């Protein structure tokens, strides 16, 4: 009675016969996807040839179109140049429209508590504009989600988008040595710098948008260097939804009534603090944080949707 090892030595059994090779299963799915895409591409190409044959007959019109386009652009530039020649001189004091700017500079520090007059202006005097702009970012994220998202409905109907996007997850290049080494050093520094710019929005150049964009960029580098698996542990769709919703609602409740009361809004009794400290400026710091969070989530959401069609990673890699 020989044991298994002796039988294998003699060539009687093959120990590897029953082990399912994961890579080979993926190859079947990959081949299916390639076949299907080839079929679709061939069908579109055949129609395209007939259509373009008709279009090539209109070759002569393109030269006329080019010339007219260039003439149009030169005319536009000339008209604007004529207008510029009648503007006040560049760099000189603008005597026509300075009453509002004078008020902001002279009374900005005592009314808002912010050293950076631009930050104090967009988050206190003109907070309604910034509210609208945060909503524009959120709307853009929703639009990109509608266009590029891949979810279980697409998977069932078998859209070509789904196969194309799922196929992409094979080619994520997060094992690169240079990216990993540089990512270990750079990502914490960039993140901390983004938080610094965000918190000091009222004391130095920066503010909500810049800090949020820097934090979003740090998340993007982290994803490229270490892969989507690591990021999915803490940045899920639920987290992004809650953070965006809470930040935007807080901003709306804090400054949405300005539409009815006008000008500087009601008197809020949040202490203004000493100018120059981090906890100064009244309501400016919480609003900065809200705007920064929305911008960071939106920038990373764009990148995630472009790369793989989903934000949270709930769909997994490939489902056959």
């Amino acid at each position: 009675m020989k044991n298994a090892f002796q039988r294998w030595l003699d060539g009687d059994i093959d120990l590897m016969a029953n082990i399912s090779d994961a890579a080979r299963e993926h190859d079947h799915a990959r081949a299916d996807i390639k076949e299907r895409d080839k079929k679709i591409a061939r069908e579109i190409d055949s129609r395209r040839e007939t259509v373009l044959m008709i279009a090539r007959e209109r070759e002569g019109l393109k030269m006329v179109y080019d010339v007219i386009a260039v003439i149009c652009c030169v005319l536009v530039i000339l008209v604007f140049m004529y207008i510029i020649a009648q503007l006040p001189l560049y760099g000189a004091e603008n005597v026509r429209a300075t009453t509002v700017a004078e008020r902001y500079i002279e009374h900005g520090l005592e009314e808002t508590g912010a050293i950076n007059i631009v930050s104090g202006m967009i988050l206190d005097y003109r907070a309604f504009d910034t509210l609208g702009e945060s909503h524009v970012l959120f709307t853009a994220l929703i639009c990109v989600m509608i266009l590029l998202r891949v979810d279980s409905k697409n998977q069932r109907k078998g859209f070509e988008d789904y196969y194309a996007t799922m196929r992409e997850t094979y080619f994520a290049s997060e094992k690169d040595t240079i990216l990993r080494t540089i990512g270990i050093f750079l990502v914490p520094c960039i993140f901390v710098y983004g938080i610094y710019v965000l918190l000091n929005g009222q004391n130095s150049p920066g503010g909500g948008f810049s800090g949020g964009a820097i934090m979003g960029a740090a998340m993007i580098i982290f994803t490229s260097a270490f892969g989507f698996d690591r990021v999915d542990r803490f940045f899920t769709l639920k987290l992004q939804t809650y953070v965006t919703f809470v930040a935007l609602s807080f901003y709306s409740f804090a400054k949405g009534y300005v539409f009815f009361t006008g000008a500087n809004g009601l008197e809020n009794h949040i202490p203004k603090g000493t100018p120059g400290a981090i906890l100064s400026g009244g309501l400016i710091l919480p609003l900065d944080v809200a705007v920064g969070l929305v911008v960071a989530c939106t920038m990373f959401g764009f990148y995630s949707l472009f790369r793989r069609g989903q934000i949270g990673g709930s769909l997994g890699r490939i489902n056959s």
Partner: protein
Amino acid sequence: MLETLLNNYEEAAAIVLFGIGFTMLLLHRNLIKKLIGMNIMDTGIFLFLASMGYIRGRKAPIITDGVTDVNAYINPVPAGLVLTGIVVSVSVTAVMLSLAIRLYRRYHTLDLDDIYLLSRHQTEDR
């Protein structure tokens, strides 16, 4: 008139950039080039708007040493407007790029004339 034009060189450069971006929108057939042209138009307008607030010899509007004199800082209002504009520009670019990706998946080409002809051809078939 020419002297004013030479003195306002920054606004003139902004209008030239606007014209170049506009030309890219009209003359190129590739969707990605058109989007880059739209972005160049946007930045040209931002340059024009922010140069309205610049005053020679004055500093950035960050209060140092408690000096709140009007004659020491530039006009801060156009800078706030441009800040909003930059973020809106990136949002519009993101939505347009996702539209371009969907168009490519549907028609397998990025050429705008071909996409128009293919879409008309396909609707006539049905």
